């Protein structure tokens, strides 16, 4: 059963990714990105990463994508007449060749490595969220705090950038 679900999620997410890049209307691109995020969350569930899947839905689809759509509608961007960089279309050929090369290498690899302690059974004993929480607040405490400071900086930066310029500093944009 898992291969069936995997093929569904994989094919739909790839199709949604291609649609996101190729659709003309930006709002349609946003909807295609939403489909991509949802199906990637499905892939996470298949990999026994339930907490990450839920975070993906709530943060990515619920917050980040809504922010994108909000700005799209705020700016009232019309569909582009000038759509692609025609001059740079040859990039696609190079990138495609690189992909084929990469896929050849990947399919031949066995990806062996040292196994960690968190087997599926061991994680299910305490629950996925609790297992992640224990590791995150012990081994990864410093990166966690750094991400907190980073988010604070992002909030302040976004507010300062997007604030309407007052008349006294009208020169400054």
């Amino acid at each position, binding site marked *: 059963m898992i291969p069936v679900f995997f093929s569904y999620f994989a094919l739909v997410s790839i199709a949604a990714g291609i649609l996101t890049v190729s659709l003309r209307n930006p709002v349609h691109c946003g909807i295609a990105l939403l489909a991509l995020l949802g199906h990637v969350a499905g892939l996470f569930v298949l990999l026994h990463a339930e907490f990450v899947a839920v975070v*993906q839905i709530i943060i990515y689809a619920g917050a980040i994508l809504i*922010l994108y759509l909000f700005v799209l509608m705020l700016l009232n*961007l019309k569909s582009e007449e000038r759509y692609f960089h025609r001059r740079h279309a040859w990039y696609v050929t190079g990138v495609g060749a690189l992909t084929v090369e990469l*896929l050849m290498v990947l399919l031949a690899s066995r990806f062996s490595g040292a196994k960690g302690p*968190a087997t599926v059974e061991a994680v299910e004993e305490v629950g996925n969220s609790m297992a992640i929480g224990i590791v995150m607040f012990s081994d990864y405490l410093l990166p966690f705090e750094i991400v907190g400071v980073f988010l604070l900086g992002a909030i302040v930066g976004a507010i300062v950038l997007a604030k309407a310029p007052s008349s006294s500093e009208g020169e400054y944009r």
Partner: protein
Amino acid sequence: MVPVSAYVLVSAILFVTGLVGVLIRRNFIIVLMSVEIMLNAANINLVAFAHHLDSLAGQIMTLFVIAIAAGEAAVGLAIIIVVFRGKIATNVDQINLLKW
């Protein structure tokens, strides 16, 4: 049982899709969306190897990547709003001059 190389394949295809999007699209917001596709491809890779190697580190890195993506979206969209307010430019190739 789906082998890990299948997930890596999906991830590689999605990453290249996002890369092509960044290279060929002109609209700011679509370029940022393509960056999100690339971040998602990286996330699939991280979670797939976390599952494959029985470790939680990949899942935690994925959570950090999602947090960074949120910050990037906020600041990037703020910059887009500033550019749109300052002069009517909705394409990345129209912004080719810094202030001097």
